């Protein structure tokens, strides 16, 4: 049996990508293709009082300038449905396909321009005259839900989209009986996804627009498929959505956008092939972001720093619309207790609209904020009670003997949330040892004597992964003995194909290179749920594992009939079924040929045609991964500049299918989290105009801002799925900002500064230091 699972098999994706033969959406070239751009709102909130595209339509190369009313005949609704399921009721929080009445964020699409080239489309878009009558712009989520506040959209009575309470236990009692209560207000800002490839859509219109083939740089081809079926009222058999190579998703490509509906509708209307490739400025002003959360928190502890209760309020800036059922603040509120025992918990969550780009998942999807808030409070306890920060955590971490740990919080569905496996105390201990936590105080003192400010920080996290209900996996043997895997999971650079190929190849005893994985094509895989929330390895991996096992069993059964020996006498090795201790064998390809059937030839009686199996392994539980990160920083107090000097990251993500790929996910995830701690800020001014709209202003970390990362892995196999895996895609990001900010605060402990925000940019840090110095 060739063992591939657990090996760092070189990626199957790489050969094409390395020689420039990737096929991203902008690489797709169709005949007679026209190019699109959008006229987008330049105002954060305004009524559209005039629209004149006459001159624009007459410009060179321009084929059409389409508004909401032009597309209306093609669409079942003017506004996006909340999810892929068609919704009969108008939902008053989803975006419009094209806006023709009232714009509510800078960047909102107003019209679609179609021309021979993108440059000419942009010329025409600039010439479209839209008259705006300004309306009050809502900028601050904290003020936006106050009674009498101006509304973000006239159709709303209030900017408060939703208010909910998450909690359990006797919170008031816990606080009343506490030895200490510590309070803090924490501001968190996460910013944008900024995959290096922006969004894009290509539509092929066939047979007078009655059939459409759509390529979209998306994480959710099936969502897009079903939404288009509903919105365009199309026969499912006449529509196909294909995910090309995706140059990174990171969350923003998890939503379905107005552009992804408008372009196909226009293609159908005009019966033309269309291409829209988002440019970076469009990405800044219309791809979803995770922006601001304002947390007001109190934590109650006993005299030994054991948590008795935690309560507070979270105000979440949702932006102008809610394109998806709001998940982030709910994730943040329910994930906050993390790996700690919190006997009583109460969080009020207010989801508030503002006149800014709509908010939805960016890598971590609310979990980074939960970890940051919790870890800041743990540090607060330690600092105020003059205890070691690791010790405070150790006292409160869920101990191994309590696993599986049933959280007192229930999922939205009412199901229990259970941390299935993981040893959080041992994880932290191992990380502390690797990072030299005990030695640091002496090093810090020596550095201070030289006038240098160094600090160390710590953060823990858990992440529920492998979200169901399922992900499809089909394994099929080809006539030549090679194997195909079809899955509804979506690849966006995370090595999905390689991992699934390894899983499949191991069961079928073939080489991983002989497995082709086709992901994200709705014609090939009608059912699929897509890539988000660190779910696909667990769900698709399990389905593929079971499907491959089933195909192996079929092969053996078929071979036993054909070779007329018992199944026990057979083994599958190197792609062939062998008689044990003999030299007769049948290749998988030969078996596939037989099982293809031939007219006039008898088909073996108890065999089914075809050498393939489709499985949708189901789950309704999450399997929880855990992480512990330790960061070392140095702060230049004249500049407020933070340098990350060292970073140790521990992860337990169950069984590692491909350790090399896991390492890539972890390191990449941490880099994003460091960006969130020190660099990334999506700014808006007081009129809700975006002020960071290029990569000169919005700062992504480069190779010179990061250290080498030291990673530690523990594999506690998940007992909840056949492959023992847990997800890893977001776990690197989740504790990272918390660890870095913890370290920055520690570096500045001579100034007794409390840092209650992320990012902490140099000038802000400088101001905190100055203020502290002024009072000493």
């Amino acid at each position, binding site marked *: 049996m060739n063992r591939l699972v657990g090996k760092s098999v070189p990626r199957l994706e790489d050969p094409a990508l390395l020689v420039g033969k990737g096929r991203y959406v902008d690489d797709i070239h169709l005949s007679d293709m026209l190019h699109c751009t959008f006229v987008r709102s330049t105002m954060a909130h305004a009524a559209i009082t005039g629209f004149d595209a006459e001159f624009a339509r007459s410009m060179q190369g321009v084929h059409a300038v389409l508004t909401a009313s032009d597309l209306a005949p093609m669409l079942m609704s003017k506004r996006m449905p909340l999810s892929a399921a068609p919704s009969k009721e108008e939902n008053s929080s989803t975006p419009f396909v094209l806006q023709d009445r009232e714009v509510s964020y800078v960047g909102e699409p107003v019209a679609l321009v179609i021309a021979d080239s993108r*440059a000419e489309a*942009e010329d025409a878009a600039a010439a479209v005259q839209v008259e705006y009558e300004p309306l009050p712009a809502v900028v601050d989520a904290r003020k936006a839900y106050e009674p009498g506040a101006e509304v973000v959209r006239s159709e709303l009575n209030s900017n408060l989209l939703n208010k909910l309470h998450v909690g359990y236990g006797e919170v008031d009692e816990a606080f009343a009986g506490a030895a200490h209560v510590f309070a803090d207000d924490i501001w968190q800002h996460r910013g944008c996804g900024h995959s290096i490839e922006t969004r894009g859509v290509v539509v092929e219109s066939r047979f007078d627009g009655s059939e459409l083939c759509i390529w979209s740089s998306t994480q959710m081809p099936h969502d897009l498929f079903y939404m288009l079926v509903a919105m365009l009222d199309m026969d499912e058999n006449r529509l196909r959505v294909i995910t090309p190579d995706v140059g990174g998703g990171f969350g923003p490509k998890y939503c379905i956008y107005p552009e992804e509906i408008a372009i196909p509708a226009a293609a159908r209307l005009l019966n033309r092939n269309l291409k829209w490739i988002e440019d970076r*400025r469009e990405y800044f002003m219309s791809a979803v972001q995770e922006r601001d959360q304002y947390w007001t928190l109190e934590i109650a502890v006993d005299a030994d720093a054991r948590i008795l209760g935690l309560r507070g309020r979270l105000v979440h800036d949702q932006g102008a619309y809610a394109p998806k059922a709001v998940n982030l603040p709910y994730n943040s509120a329910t994930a906050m207790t993390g790996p700690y025992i919190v006997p009583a918990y109460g969080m009020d969550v207010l989801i508030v609209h503002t006149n800014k780009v709509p908010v939805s998942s960016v890598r971590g999807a609310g979990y980074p904020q939960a970890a940051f808030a919790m870890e800041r409070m743990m540090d607060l306890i330690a600092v105020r009670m003059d205890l070691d920060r690791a010790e405070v955590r150790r006292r409160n971490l869920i101990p191994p003997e309590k696993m599986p740990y049933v959280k007192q919080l229930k999922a939205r569905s009412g199901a229990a949330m259970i941390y299935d496996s993981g040893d959080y105390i041992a994880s932290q201990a191992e990380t502390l040892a690797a990072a030299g936590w005990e030695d640091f105080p002496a090093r810090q003192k020596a550095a201070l004597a030289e006038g240098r400010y160094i600090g160390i920080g710590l953060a823990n996290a858990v992440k529920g992964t492998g979200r169901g209900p399922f992900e499809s996996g089909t394994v099929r043997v080809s006539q030549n003995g090679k194997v195909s895997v079809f899955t509804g999971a979506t690849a966006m650079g995370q090595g999905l194909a390689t991992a699934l190929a390894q899983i499949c190849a191991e069961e079928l005893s073939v080489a991983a290179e002989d497995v082709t994985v086709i992901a994200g094509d709705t014609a090939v895989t009608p059912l699929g749920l897509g890539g988000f929330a660190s779910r696909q390895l667990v769900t698709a991996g399990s389905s593929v594992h079971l499907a491959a096992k089933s195909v192996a069993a079929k092969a053996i059964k078929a071979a036993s009939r054909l070779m007329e020996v018992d199944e026990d006498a057979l083994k599958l090795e190197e792609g062939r079924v062998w008689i044990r201790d003999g030299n007769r064998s049948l290749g998988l390809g030969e078996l596939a040929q037989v099982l293809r059937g031939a007219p006039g030839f008898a088909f073996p009686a108890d065999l089914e045609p075809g050498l393939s199996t489709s499985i949708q392994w189901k789950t309704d539980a999450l399997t929880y991964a855990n992480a512990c990160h330790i960061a070392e920083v140095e702060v230049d107090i004249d*500049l407020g*500049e933070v340098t990350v000097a060292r970073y140790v990251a521990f992860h337990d993500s169950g069984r590692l299918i491909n350790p090399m790929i896991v390492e890539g996910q972890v390191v990449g995830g941490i880099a994003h989290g460091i960006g969130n701690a020190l660099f990334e800020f999506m700014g808006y001014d007081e009129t809700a105009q975006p002020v960071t709209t290029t990569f000169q202003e919005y700062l992504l970390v480069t190779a010179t*801002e990061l250290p080498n990362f030291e990673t530690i892995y523990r594999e506690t196999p998940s007992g909840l799925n056949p492959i023992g895996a847990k997800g890893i895609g977001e776990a690197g990001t989740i504790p990272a900002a918390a660890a870095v900010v913890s370290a920055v605060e520690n570096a500045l402990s001579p100034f007794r500064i409390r840092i209650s925000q992320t990012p902490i940019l*140099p000038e802000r840090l400088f101001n905190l230091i100055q203020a502290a110095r002024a009072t000493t």
Partner: protein
Amino acid sequence: MKPPPFEYFCPTALNEAVELLAAHENSKVLAGGQSLMAMLNLRYLFPDVLVDINRIDELAGIAVASGAARIGAMTRQRVIETNGEIARVAPIFREALKLVGHRQTRNRGTIGGSLCHLDPAAELATLALLHDAVVEIAGRDGTRRRLGIHDFIAGFMMPNIEAHEIVVAIEVPLWSAGHGYAFHEFARRHGDFAIASAACLLEKDGDGAISRLSIALGGIGSIPQRLPAAEEFLLGKRGEPGDLASALEFCAGLELIGDFHGSAEYRLSVVRSMLRKSLELALARAGRRDA
């Protein structure tokens, strides 16, 4: 983000380029393109005509003679950075240029383009000011004029140059062999625009006292600035910590702007930090034969 439409000319002779600029009112010079092309792609600018001067050979080149380095306006930043003669006679250029953008932008970006764009944080403009450089400018009918850098820098992103004129070369007076030099800047990431930069050139006499000093600061105001008060103060002194600390106080007299990248107060702290580092390093290097 595609550029707006424009007509494109690519003359091979300097006077042809000047005439093209004179003939077309809304025309712009295309030099390295690292600033201009980005602005065109972002549609911040709408020139009707671009005059590409990349093929005018006489505009590029480095000649070191008689106490000055004459650097052609179209000399690529990367060429200046790696030029052995410049490294020998004006080593501050290499030190500063390593911090300018990234290798890809320095491969195309030019010294003339940087000076004509005059971003307040532009390292080359700061160095030109530091050296009291002279800018040679070509006008119509083969005319040339020379303009001291202090007069060339007219204001925020405003070089003192007519629309039809083209910068031909920058003449950099050289300091004596073994002079002290240092360039420090603080930027958010490697290669980003400096929030504040400090450039120093320094010579010592036989007794180790500062006999000559030039300080130029970039990124903090609308244009790069000299600091004559600190230069005068330190002349004749030895650069003891007390002297340096006093010299830093003069920074409060600088023009300090507050914007998205930093408030005036913050910039003051940053520029003081940069100047302190540059003065210390320039002092250490002055007089060393192998500096």
